[in-house]
């Protein structure tokens, strides 16, 4: 059997990335082609200028096809970063009856299916779109944390579903864009979820971890605990905001600010460098200037600290802050910022590191950073969606996929 060949498309605010990869049987990825293009017409993960964005997507796809010496084929999986995603936990339950239709009995497969069905029915407002429905553990008569309740005696069976939903208009526009390329968009996955799939190990998921994808226009986050997704969300603030802050704070144009951020930016205010000056080279009509490193770092520090604090507050609100034993994992372009892990460590009071993509070959070291995490994760997500159809261990998998019908957390 040939390994499934999957293309992931990430329409980001700063870059558009296309990743073509094969999924090996053991779950490892072989990257066949990569295409990147500077993004245009996208702001905060939303399309603001359709034609420009479409052009950029086409160019990125061409680049990927050239690298892979292969055609993309007909369908792609979309990474929907941003879209103002939010998560919602919905718990549904059914009373368990015995064979005489009296309360209290053995939980059967039908009971489990029914409870899942009830839990999965979550009404959403019209302007939101469902991205993922992830099943939580079962709760039998108020006792939680049960993975498989079959054949247990109980009066009530409850199960939670974590729904990750985004803004309908944003996601549909992204889909429409891919259809205009023209390719079919098979499915859209939440960017934060994809990043987590790419960088997390099962141990980390069990221990409790938050993955923060620092994108250009949006910051996505997702919290795992006990192996399950517990919280997810997206804030429409990202690297672009830092650049804009530098523009207004230091009176520079956008390009200069972007270059300054990348070369000398730091998320920490380093006392030793506080007297340092950075010179901005002269260019067409603009005579060079000198800016204080301390000012630059203050601007970045205040912005990044705020983003982390907003996420920390969200985690605190859901009483998950004590559960982040495996700490904070950063991905996305923003994770390349100097001092960013130290800042996250301060804010979350938990160990922090930049995520490393595991089980993936074919990326050069430079790219193997956290930048492609979302795209790689998206391929993995797609593979997990396709798997049940594969003939190998079909019966077992179908049974499993039925059991975890809400989608796998892996």
């Amino acid at each position: 059997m040939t390994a499934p060949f999957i293309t992931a498309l990430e329409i980001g605010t700063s870059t558009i990335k296309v990743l073509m990869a094969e999924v090996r049987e053991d779950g490892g990825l072989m990257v066949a082609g990569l295409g990147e293009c500077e993004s245009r017409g996208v702001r905060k993960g939303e399309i603001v200028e359709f034609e420009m964005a479409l052009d950029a997507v086409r160019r990125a796809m061409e680049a990927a096809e050239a690298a892979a010496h292969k055609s993309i084929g007909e369908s792609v999986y979309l990474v929907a970063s941003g879209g103002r995603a939010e998560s919602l936990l919905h718990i549904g339950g059914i009373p368990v009856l015995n064979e005489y239709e009296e309360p209290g009995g053995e939980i059967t497969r039908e009971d489990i299916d029914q409870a899942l069905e009830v839990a999965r029915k979550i009404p959403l407002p019209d302007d939101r779109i469902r991205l993922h429905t992830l099943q939580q553990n079962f709760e039998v008569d108020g006792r939680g944390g049960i993975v498989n309740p079959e054949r247990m005696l109980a009066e009530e069976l409850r199960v939670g579903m974590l729904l990750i939903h985004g803004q309908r208009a944003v996601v549909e526009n992204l889909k429409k864009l891919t259809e205009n390329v023209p390719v079919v968009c098979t499915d859209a996955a939440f960017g934060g979820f994809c990043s987590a799939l790419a960088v997390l190990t099962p141990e980390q998921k069990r221990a409790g971890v938050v993955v923060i994808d620092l994108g250009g226009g949006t910051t996505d986050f997702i919290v795992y605990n006990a192996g399950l997704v517990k919280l997810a969300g997206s804030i429409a603030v990202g690297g672009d905001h830092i650049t804009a802050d530098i523009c207004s704070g230091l009176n520079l144009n956008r390009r200069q600010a972007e270059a300054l951020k990348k070369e000398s930016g730091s998320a920490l205010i380093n006392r030793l460098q506080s007297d340092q000056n950075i010179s901005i080279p002269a260019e067409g009509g603009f005579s060079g200037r000198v800016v204080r490193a301390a000012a630059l770092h203050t601007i970045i520090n205040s912005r990044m600290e705020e983003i982390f604090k907003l996420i920390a507050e969200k985690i605190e609100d859901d009483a998950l802050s004590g559960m982040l034993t495996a700490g904070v994992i950063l991905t996305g372009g923003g994770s390349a910022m100097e001092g960013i892990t130290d800042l996250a460590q301060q804010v979350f009071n938990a160990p922090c590191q930049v995520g490393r993509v595991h089980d993936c070959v074919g990326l050069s070291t430079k790219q193997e950073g956290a930048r492609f995490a979302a795209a790689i994760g998206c391929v993995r997500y797609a593979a997990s969606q396709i798997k049940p159809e594969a003939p190998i261990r079909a019966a077992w998998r179908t049974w499993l996929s039925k059991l975890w019908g809400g989608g796998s957390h892996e």
Partner: protein
Amino acid sequence: MSELQKKILVFGLGGAGCNTLARIAPRAPEGMEFAVMDCDFQTLEACNIENRLAVGKALTDGLSTGGDIEVGRRCAENSASQLETLLSGVDLLMVVTGLGGGFGTGSAPVVARMARHLGLTTLFFTVLPFPFEGLVAQGKAHSAVRKLRTYADAIVQMPNALIQPEGDVLLEDSLERSSRTLAAGVIGLWRMLAYTGVCNLDFSSLHTMLSYCDAFCRFACATATGEGRADALIDSLRTHPLVADSEIFEKAPGMIIGITGGSDLKLSEVQQIAEALAPKGEECWVKIGLATDPAFAGRISAIVLAAEAWKEPLVDDGRGGLKPLAGDGKQGELPGLKRSRTFGGAERTIWNGEDLDVPTYIRRKIKLPR
């Protein structure tokens, strides 16, 4: 009603709402509009209101919610689009519902939220359960009132036990009495707004009252005839069971008095009633509405809506909370303000009321080292 007049809809929710409206509707003046909504098809079937909304077929299969608030809420939420169609074009929504059960309790906050979203003025007449219905029902009613408070403009609470006639009465009489009290309020208010009187109560006065009243209102109504009818009317208003405490009127920071009489209504009577009932404070907001109706010959009827507290109107902050209204809240935000210029026209990032598109160091007032 003429084209210019505002559209008023009386909306019954759940079993109590349907039953009460079924009793009110036959005695309502012509032109008054009613609608009911429930998930129990049997109740709806028995109701004589034509404008019915049967919801939650998928959830309850035409049965009642069985006292489950969540089911009630989801029934209403699932039928959001039908509800929106029903509510669109309405200016004042008077909702009649019993709290403490399943459907009314669960759906009332949804209706309130939707009405707020559509820009309707809402007045909730809520009937609270008898003490014998148990603490659970009381608790449900209490929490529903709290939820309603976020979105409803005004809530009139009517504990069932208070509006019963005295003595050992028949159940039918008791029900009749509750619906009559409600009917008097709903119809009285409607009449004030719909009929052109000598100095009729207009829609905006009611709106002022409802938006400033800090959600909770007391309400009383009475009718009197014959010699000394003004005195009798004042007396029965002051001892109205729902008022409970006659000081309520004196201390009320805001009040609407609506007086309806026949062509024989005298100025002296109006003066007498107004003077006796109007709050004594200097800064009180009082509006008196007068209407004459030939049907009221020889009779005089009055309704009083008194605010319990007065404060700056709160407006929905768009995130399920409320914030004080700054300036004219009815005028929506300018479209330009919602879009950000720096970020190519993408929607502004508003998080907990803060505009995150503005640099953090500016919002936090951090001084940049120069």
